[in-house]
C-alpha cells in the first residue's frame, strides 16, 4: 500500500468529498493530503506500520468535522429559513433575578449589616450599573466578562473574610493564654 500526496488543493477536496460520500472514516486523512488508493488502504497502511494513535486521531477528527458541518448547516438553515409562525409564549414565564442576587444572599451570611451597608451595597450597585450598561449596549461577551470578574472578586473577598473570621478567635485565644 502506498500513500499518495496530492499537491493540488481542489483535487484534494474533490477526493475528500467523494471518500466522505462513500462513508470513508478517514476523510480527514484525505483532506490532509493522503489519498486513499483503495477502500481502507490508509487503515491498512496505518495498522501495518503500528500507527494506532494516528488512526484514532483521524477517526475522531472525522467525527468532529461531521459534527461541525451539521452545526453550521443547522445554523444556516435557522438563519435563512426562520420559523414563519411565531412561537407561543410559554405559559410560565421565567423570573429573572437581578445580577448579583446570589452574591448578596451569600454575603448576608458572612458579613455584618454594617459591612454590608458600607462595602457590599456600593460594590453591588456599581456591578449592577456596569452589567445593565452592557445589556443596554447589547455587548454579550462583555456582560460575561464583567460578571465573571465581579464573581471572582466576590469569591476571593469571601474566602479572605472567612479566613479572618476563623483566625481572629484563634489569635485572641493565643494571646489570652499568653503563648505569644
Amino acid at each position, binding site marked *: 500500500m502506498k500513500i499518495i500526496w496530492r499537491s493540488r488543493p481542489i483535487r484534494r477536496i474533490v477526493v475528500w468529498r467523494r471518500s466522505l460520500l462513500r462513508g470513508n472514516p478517514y476523510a480527514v486523512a484525505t483532506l490532509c493530503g493522503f489519498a486513499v488508493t483503495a477502500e481502507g488502504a490508509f487503515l491498512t497502511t496505518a495498522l501495518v506500520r503500528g500507527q494506532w494513535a494516528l488512526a484514532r486521531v483521524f477517526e475522531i477528527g472525522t467525527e468532529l468535522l461531521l459534527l461541525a458541518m451539521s452545526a453550521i448547516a443547522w445554523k444556516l438553515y435557522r438563519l435563512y429559513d426562520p420559523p414563519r409562525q411565531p412561537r407561543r409564549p410559554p405559559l410560565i414565564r421565567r423570573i429573572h433575578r437581578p445580577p448579583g442576587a446570589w452574591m448578596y444572599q451569600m454575603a448576608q451570611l458572612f458579613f455584618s449589616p454594617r459591612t454590608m451597608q*458600607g*462595602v457590599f451595597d*456600593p*460594590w*453591588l*450597585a*456599581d456591578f*449592577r*450599573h456596569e452589567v445593565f450598561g452592557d445589556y443596554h449596549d447589547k455587548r454579550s461577551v462583555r456582560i460575561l466578562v464583567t460578571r465573571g470578574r465581579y464573581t471572582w472578586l466576590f469569591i476571593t473577598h469571601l474566602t479572605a473574610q472567612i479566613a479572618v473570621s476563623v483566625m481572629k478567635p484563634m489569635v485572641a485565644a493565643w494571646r489570652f493564654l499568653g503563648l505569644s
Partner: protein
Amino acid sequence: MILGLLIARGELYGLEIVRQSEGRVGAGTLYVTLNRMSEKGFVESRLEDAPPGAMGPPRRLYRATGYGLRVIRWWESAKRVFARRPAILGMP
C-alpha cells in the same frame, strides 16, 4: 491616591475611581478602603439621585471632606520634609 482623586475630580462613585486611577486602584480593595476612610472621616458619601427610568440600586457617591483635605495636605508636606531630611527617618 484615592483621596487625591476625590479632591481633584470632586464627587465620584467607586467604579469611576477605579477607571480614573488607570489601574493603580483595584476594585477588590477600593470599597473596603473607602469604608475605612469614611469611618475615619476622610471622605463622606451619599446615595445618588437616580434619574427616571434608571435600573438597579442607587450608587454611592464619595467626596473628600475638609478633614480629608487637611490630612492630605499634611501628608504632602510631611513627604517633602522627609525627602529633604531623610535623617529624621533614621536613614543615612
